[in-house]
């Protein structure tokens, strides 16, 4: 009886793993297809679709745009998030709870509605669609995240280190740059990394707020209009590979160093 339960459990786990991996395996496998349709039978392996992706100027420039938007918007998010988290954690401000709630409020609203709001506002104010507009939207979704992560990590022992630095005569900006930032580095990096991945993968805000110059998810979306296409498989597999490298890097650098 017990053995039967164990067997059922293992079979169930294998089935779920199968379900989780099925689309990814199909995606990567048929990115190596030699013929023009990513459907069985498999005719590869061939790298022709990867070649097609890398020689597609629209896709490569979209990739550069995505990286630029991700890095710059994440830098802005983490800077604004860190400064405000420090302000709220170290000083008593009137209406602090309300203001902190205001900063984290965008977390509860779907990206579609945030993008819609910005589209209506920019349209009314005559701001043209652009990568900058999309980047502004990405800061709106990532700032609350960075704030929440960094604010939650600002404990009392850090106050004491800062106080010691002040007592020894350090100016406020010196305390910030030489004490608080290094001490908070793991939380700051976690906020930056999460912002990067969310911005990198964000579709609907970029779709609404950019026009000619756009980001990679939007360009992949445009590829989908041509139906099933091994080129889309190849782009998808490349994005997957980049993400895996980032995750492994994050695992090895940040989480290993963290004291248990």
């Amino acid at each position, binding site marked *: 009886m017990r053995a039967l339960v164990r067997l059922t*459990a*293992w079979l*169930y786990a294998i089935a*779920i*793993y199968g*379900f*989780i*991996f099925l*689309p*990814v395996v*199909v*995606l990567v496998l048929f990115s190596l297809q030699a013929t023009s349709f990513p*459907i*069985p039978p498999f005719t590869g392996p061939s790298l022709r679709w990867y070649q097609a992706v890398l020689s597609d100027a629209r896709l490569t420039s979209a990739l550069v745009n995505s990286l630029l938007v991700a890095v710059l918007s994440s830098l802005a998010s983490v800077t604004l*998030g860190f*400064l*405000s988290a*420090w*302000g709220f954690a*170290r*000083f008593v*401000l009137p209406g602090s709870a309300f*203001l902190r709630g*205001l*900063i984290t409020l*965008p977390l*509860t*609203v*779907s*990206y*579609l*509605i*945030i993008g*819609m*709001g910005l*589209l*209506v*506002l920019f349209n*009314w104010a005559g701001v043209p669609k652009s990568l900058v507009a999309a980047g502004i939207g990405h*800061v*709106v979704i990532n700032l609350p995240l960075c704030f929440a992560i960094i604010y939650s990590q600002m404990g009392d022992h850090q106050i004491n280190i800062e*106080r010691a630095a*002040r*007592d020894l005569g350090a100016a*406020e900006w010196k305390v910030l740059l030489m004490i608080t930032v290094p001490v908070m580095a793991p939380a700051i990096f976690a906020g930056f990394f999460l912002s990067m*991945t969310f911005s990198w*993968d964000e*579709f*609907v805000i970029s779709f609404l707020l950019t026009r000619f110059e756009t980001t990679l*998810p939007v360009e992949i*979306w445009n590829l*989908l209009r041509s139906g*099933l296409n091994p080129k*889309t498989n190849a782009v*998808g597999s490349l*994005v*997957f590979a980049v*993400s*895996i490298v980032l*995750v492994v890097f994050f695992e090895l650098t940040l989480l290993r160093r963290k004291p248990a």
Partner: protein
Amino acid sequence: MSVSGSNSRALPWALVTPALAWTCAFFVLPFIAMGFSSLTAHEGGGFTIANYSQFFTDPSYWRAMVNSLEVTGTVTVISILLAYPFAWILAEMVPERWQRLALILAVLPFWTSYVVRSYSWLLVLAQNGVVNRALIGTGLIAEPLQLANTRLATVTGFVHFFVMLLTLTIFANLKQLSPSYRKAAADLGAGPVRTFLHVVLPLTLPGIMVGAFLTFVLCIGDYITPQILGGNNELVMPQLVMMQIGRRGDFPLASALSIILMAVVTIAYLACARWLKIERA
């Protein structure tokens, strides 16, 4: 340690103002703009409530909301039912030192792009895709089934995503549970089934509710999965919103529909929050 008086009062505000200003300018203000827009006529621009009354009187708009709620409800229930036993197996049956790896593997496809993941399901479910070929190959069916561009495809794509998400949250929940609860139940003579039903399940229920709420919010607001996998056969609310902008440039109607969608999420939140509090009391 005190800095000069005026300086120490100005500093905290200098720190928090940029973030507050950003939130006001690019989150609160757009929301107000959307509210104004939703009360404006598309043609002419006068004040009107027609955009809202259109939703409540036009059955095809209602239908989109019903579709959204049905799809979201189905996805939430199926995802929890699939994820709970899986998280349980990972937490209880996989040896401690392999758990981290097992979990990383379970959420690996999380890291593909969201658009690409939906597209991958299209590959799997297409007319000549892997599933149809396999079914025909084994002789179960003679003609390929219509799997893509159906509600089934939308639900499958969503469930794939949310099983990963819920496995993470439920796993964390199960690990936080102190083993002494289970030992106590066993000492008092409860078998594994009773222990689970009367001790473990109730204790992990708040975590499940949080996961269910997260699933609900993310699922009902998503445009990508229903658009790629469900096609245009039956629309859900985000598709209806995007359609007003894309095809007709009707910002006022799109704004009104967005606000209605947000209201539904807020109602769900209030219902969920109340329910959670009762559970904890």
